């Protein structure tokens, strides 16, 4: 029920994601273009937030979409909506990339690679529901205690474990666990009450 209520809506008249993914299995380039145009911004924003470097983020986004094109069958339509699956795949790829890099490599790349001027979302109408939900998520997370919010961000964007977060924030492990779980439950309740 929860998933049914909060499945991202798609523009009226446009084919749903699932239909486009099925067309990928028939090697339909137009379906790929439509999926890319529909989701590349949120995927890129997420990957850029994790990796902090535009060129590396584009490499990872390219890998993600090529994986989607070449292995579309990996997405099981019976196991939930497409976008969360794509975002999970993108986050995992970005975190893998982050973990593979040595600290020295990171520093060198940070010096050489600056973020470009960011491009605004070009099609407001088609992203309206997505943007409203994004605003709501930001509001709800913004209402958390700063340390609680920081713990969730460290886990999500940097892939740290409870123990690593506790060490980084110098807080007891149990506190960190409670912060993260309660914060996510609050987000869930907030999104449910918005629907």
């Amino acid at each position, binding site marked *: 029920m929860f998933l049914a209520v909060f499945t991202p809506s798609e523009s009226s008249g446009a084919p749903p994601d699932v239909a486009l993914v099925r067309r990928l299995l028939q090697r339909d380039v137009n379906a790929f273009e439509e999926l890319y145009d529909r989701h590349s911004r949120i995927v890129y924003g997420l990957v850029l937030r994790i990796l902090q470097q535009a060129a590396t983020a584009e490499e990872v986004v390219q890998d993600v979409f090529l994986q989607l094109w070449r292995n579309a069958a990996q997405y099981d339509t019976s196991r939930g909506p497409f976008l969360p699956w794509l975002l999970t795949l993108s986050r995992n790829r970005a975190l893998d990339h982050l973990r593979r890099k040595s600290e020295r490599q990171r520093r060198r790349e940070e010096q050489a690679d600056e973020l470009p001027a960011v491009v605004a979302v070009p099609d407001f109408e088609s992203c309206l529901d997505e943007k409203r939900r994004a605003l709501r998520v*930001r509001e709800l997370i913004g209402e958390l205690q700063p340390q609680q919010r920081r713990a969730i961000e460290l886990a999500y964007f940097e892939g740290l474990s409870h123990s690593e977060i506790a060490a980084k924030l110098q807080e007891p492990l149990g506190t960190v666990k409670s912060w993260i779980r309660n914060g996510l439950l609050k987000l869930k309740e907030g999104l449910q009450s918005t629907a």
Partner: protein
Amino acid sequence: MSNNEPTRDPFLELVESYALGSLDPEERASLEAHLAAGCAECGKALEEARWLVSQLACLAPEAGPSGVLRARLIETVRADVANNVANDEFALATSRAIIPLWMWGAVAASVLFAFYNFYEARSVRQAIRQTQAALDEQVDLQKKSAQELALARREAVILTDPRSVKIPMPAGQKDLPPLQATWHAALGILVSGESLPLPRDNRTLQLWLIPKAAGSKPIPSLTVRPDADGKFHLLVQNPPDSQGDTKALAITEEPAGGSPQPTTTPVWVGAVTGK
């Protein structure tokens, strides 16, 4: 606890953190064993938790990949399709070449002829693909030019339309130049300025919309760095529906990628006086 209360599965406490990937190895292993044993309740909770965690992607600042990436991907995908067609035809041709040994001498010439024809056809297809790729490249360039032109027109209208609201954004520090924001209710917010110093390290400048409603938090918007000449240019194409809900625009310096809430004092602030 009353004995009549239903017992809650203790593993349910772990599913959100498991979906987030933050469980330590021992807890992770125990939950995975529990899921492998087929607990339907935890399985369903995990499915919901995965969706919930995916929503955290909304915390990332808005940004778009370059047009070059899109063009590169589409080119790769089209090449994949073309290669698959060629491979399928090759497989078909070679399967037809399996001939009984006693007929080998008789059919060898035919097979060679077939291969010759196949390679000839492939060369023609390759030439067509190259032409098609060049054509696609031209189309992409035209699309890009059209997009840039549309953007420039949009900015020109924002700047010249009498319905646009001008919002001066003076700097809070004497040695910094002011910025100028122009807000058109339908077309967006344009913020520009010149001679800005580059933020240190990889830091960036981020625009915030300060709501009028008491207790509301600043709404994060786009991030951008001045260019090498100190020019600052930012276009928000999707501002809130009503200017009347916004008290002010502010710009802060933030870590690369931006922040969900400001982490520094605003450097530039401009009051919104529109309807």
